[in-house]
C-alpha cells in the first residue's frame, strides 16, 4: 500500500517532448484513472511509473521512495497489460506463481498465495490450462490474478478491457471494482474509455498532448469541467460546444441566433468577449421531457426544428437545429418525433458552461 507522487515528470524521445512535466499526487488506496485520447501520453506516463520507460526529467516517488532509476522489479508494482501478456508456455498456475518463483518463495507459500488469488478471481477450474485454452475474459482474469499474487504497493492497469467485447467489458469492469474493494491497494488505471474512468475511479486525470487538463472526482470533471477539452471529452453523448460572442447580456452565435448570457457568468464576461458556450444534452431537452427537478431557475425556451432522432428505448437523442448546427438533446419519456417537426426546447442555463475561446479555460471560477 503506498502513495504515488509525480513531480515535473517529463518524457522526451530525441527532441520531441511527449509528457511535459506533469505533477500528480495519488493517495494511498486511491483508484486513479488516467484518461485521454490516444497519443495524450497516458500510457507513457504509466510505463514510466512502471519503470518500463526511462524518465527524461522530474521525479517518481512510490511510497515515499524515489524510484526514478530503479528497474521495474524493484518498485514493487504489478501491471495488467492491454494484451494480457500471459506466458504462453506456462499453465495458469505457473503464470500466477511466476513472480513468486522468481522471488524464490517457498513452495507452500507459493501454493497458498496462488490458491488465494485463484479463489478471489474464480480461476480454480483453470489452473492446469494454458493461456491458449482460455477465453478472452478468462485470460483477463488470469492477468489480474498474476498482478494480485505479488501483493504489490501499486497496481497499474494499461487499458485492460480494450480487447474484450462490450458485454464482457461491462462485466470485467464490475470485477475490477470488486477487486479493488477487496485488495484495497493503490490503483492507476489507464483507459481511453471515459465510461470506465467514470465508473471505476475515485479521481480522474484527464490528459491531452502530454499535459494534465484536469484532476477531479468523476462528479467534478463531469459537472465542473475546467477546460473546453474536458467538457467535450467527458460525457456521452458529448456536450454541445459552440463559439459565441458576448453582446448586450446575450450570447450571439456565428449565424446570428442568440441565447441569454447565463446569470453566473454575467460578472465574468464583458461585451465583445469571444467565448465557447457549452450545454450537456441532459440540460438541453424537449420541454417536459427533461430531468426536471423543479428547481430550474434559469430556463430559456425556444421552438426548434428536429433534424434527426436516435431512439434508445428508455430515452431518445433528439438533434435539434439551432444556429445552423445540430445540438444534441436527451429526451426522457420519449414521444414519437420525426425529422422536420418543430418542438419546444428548454435550455437550462443555470447548468450551462462558458469557456474562453482563446485559452479554452472555464470562466466559472
Amino acid at each position, binding site marked *: 500500500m503506498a502513495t504515488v507522487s509525480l513531480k515535473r515528470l517529463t518524457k522526451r524521445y530525441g527532441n520531441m517532448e511527449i509528457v511535459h512535466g506533469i505533477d500528480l499526487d495519488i493517495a494511498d488506496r486511491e483508484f486513479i484513472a488516467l484518461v485521454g485520447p490516444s497519443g495524450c501520453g497516458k500510457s507513457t506516463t504509466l510505463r514510466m511509473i*512502471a519503470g518500463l520507460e526511462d524518465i527524461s526529467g522530474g521525479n517518481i516517488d512510490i511510497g515515499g521512495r524515489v524510484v526514478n532509476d530503479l528497474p521495474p*522489479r524493484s518498485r514493487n508494482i504489478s501491471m495488467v497489460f492491454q494484451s494480457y*501478456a*500471459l506466458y*504462453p*508456455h506456462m499453465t495458469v498456475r505457473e503464470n500466477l506463481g511466476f513472480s513468486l518463483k*522468481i*522471488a524464490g518463495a517457498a513452495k507452500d507459500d507459493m501454493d497458498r498465495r496462488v490458491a488465494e488469488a485463484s479463489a478471489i478471481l474464480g480461476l480454480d477450474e483453470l489452473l492446469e490450462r494454458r493461456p491458449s485454452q482460455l477465453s*478472452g475474459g478468462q485470460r483477463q482474469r488470469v492477468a489480474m490474478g498474476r498482478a494480485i499474487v505479488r501483493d504489490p504497493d501499486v497496481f497499474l492497469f494499461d487499458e485492460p478491457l480494450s*480487447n474484450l467485447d462490450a458485454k464482457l467489458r461491462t462485466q470485467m469492469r464490475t470485477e475490477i471494482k470488486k477487486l479493488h474493494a477487496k485488495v484495497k491497494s493503490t490503483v492507476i488505471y489507464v483507459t481511453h474509455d471515459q465510461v470506465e474512468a467514470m465508473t471505476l475511479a475515485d479521481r480522474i486525470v484527464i490528459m491531452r498532448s502530454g499535459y494534465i487538463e484536469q484532476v477531479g472526482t468523476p462528479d467534478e470533471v463531469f459537472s465542473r469541467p475546467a477546460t473546453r477539452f474536458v467538457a467535450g471529452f467527458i460525457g456521452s453523448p458529448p456536450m454541445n460546444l459552440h463559439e459565441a460572442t458576448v453582446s448586450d447580456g446575450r450570447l450571439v452565435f456565428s449565424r446570428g441566433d442568440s441565447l441569454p448570457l447565463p446569470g453566473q457568468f454575467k460578472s465574468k464576461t464583458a461585451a465583445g468577449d469571444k467565448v465557447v458556450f457549452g450545454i450537456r444534452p441532459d440540460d438541453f431537452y424537449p420541454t417536459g421531457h427533461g430531468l426536471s427537478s423543479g428547481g430550474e431557475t434559469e430556463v430559456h425556451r425556444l421552438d426548434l426544428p428536429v433534424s434527426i432522432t436516435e431512439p434508445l428505448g428508455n430515452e431518445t437523442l433528439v438533434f435539434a437545429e439551432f444556429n445552423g448546427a445540430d445540438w444534441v438533446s436527451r429526451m426522457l419519456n420519449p414521444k414519437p418525433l420525426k425529422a422536420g417537426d418543430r418542438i419546444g426546447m428548454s435550455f437550462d442555463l443555470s447548468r450551462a458552461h462558458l469557456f474562453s475561446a482563446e485559452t479554452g479555460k472555464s470562466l466559472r471560477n
Partner: protein
Amino acid sequence: MDENASARLIRRTLTVGHRVGLFLAMLVICLPGIWIVLSSLRPTVEIMAKPPVWIPQQLSFDAYVAMFSGIGKGGIPVLDYFRNSLIISVTSTVIAVAIGMAGGYAFARYRFRGKSGMFLGLMLTRTVPGIAMSLPLFFVCARLGIIDTHFGMILAYVALNIPFTIWLIDGFFRQVPKDLAEAAQIDGCTRWQAFWQVEFPLARPGIASAAIFAFLTCWNEFALASQLTRSVNSKTLPVGLLDYTAEFTIDWRGMCALAVVMIIPALTLTYIVQKHLVGGLTSGAVKG
C-alpha cells in the same frame, strides 16, 4: 444415382488421386536416398549396369566392413573423419547459434544507428556463392597458418552460418510479443532472466531450426572443406568421400557406404529436434 451419391464418388476418387500423386512425389524425392542405400549394398558391376538393375541380385555389407577395416585393407580413416566432422560441425553450430541469438535478439528488439544497413549487409553476404570465397579464404587461412586445423574450419563455418542464424532467429524473436518480457520484468525478473525464462522458451522452435540448418550446412559442406583440409587432422566426411577415387577408378560402392554413414547422424538429429520445430507456441499469449 442421386446427387449425394455422385458427390461422394467424386470425393473418394479425388482422395485416391491425391494419395497416388503424393506417393509418386515422395518416390521421386526419396529415390536418390534409396538408390544410395541400395548401391552401398551391391557390387559395382550392378551399380554400373545399363539398363539399370532395379531389383538387387545380391546384397552384402562388404563395403561397410572394408570401410572400417583400416588402411591397406580397402578402408579409410572413417572414424577420424567422423570425429573431425562432429567436432567442427557441433562447435561451429553452437557458436553460430549463440551469436545468432544475440544478434537476432538485438535486431528484433533494439533500435540502433545503422540497423537496417547492417542487416542488409549480413544478408548480402549470403548472395556470394561459397565457392567464390574459397580461394581468398584459402589465402587468409594459409597466412594465418590455420590450414588443416579444426580451428580454421570452425572459423569458416561460423562465418558462413552467422548471417543465416541471425536472420532466422530475428524472425522468431519478432514473433514473441514485447509485452511478455516487460511483464516478466515487472514480475521481478532482470532483463537477463526475462530473456531466459520467457523469450528464449518461446523462440526455441526458431532457435532449434536455426541450429539444425547450421549443423547440416557444416556437416554436408564440401567446397570450402576440400580447400582448407589436408589430412586426417581436419578432413571431414564429405572430403573423405574423395578417398574412394583413385587415378583410374571410382569405388562407387564404398562411396555410397560412406554417404550412408554421413546421412544417418544428420537424419537422426533432425528427427530428434523436429518436435521442437512445432510453431504456434506463442498463440494465446496476447489478445483474445
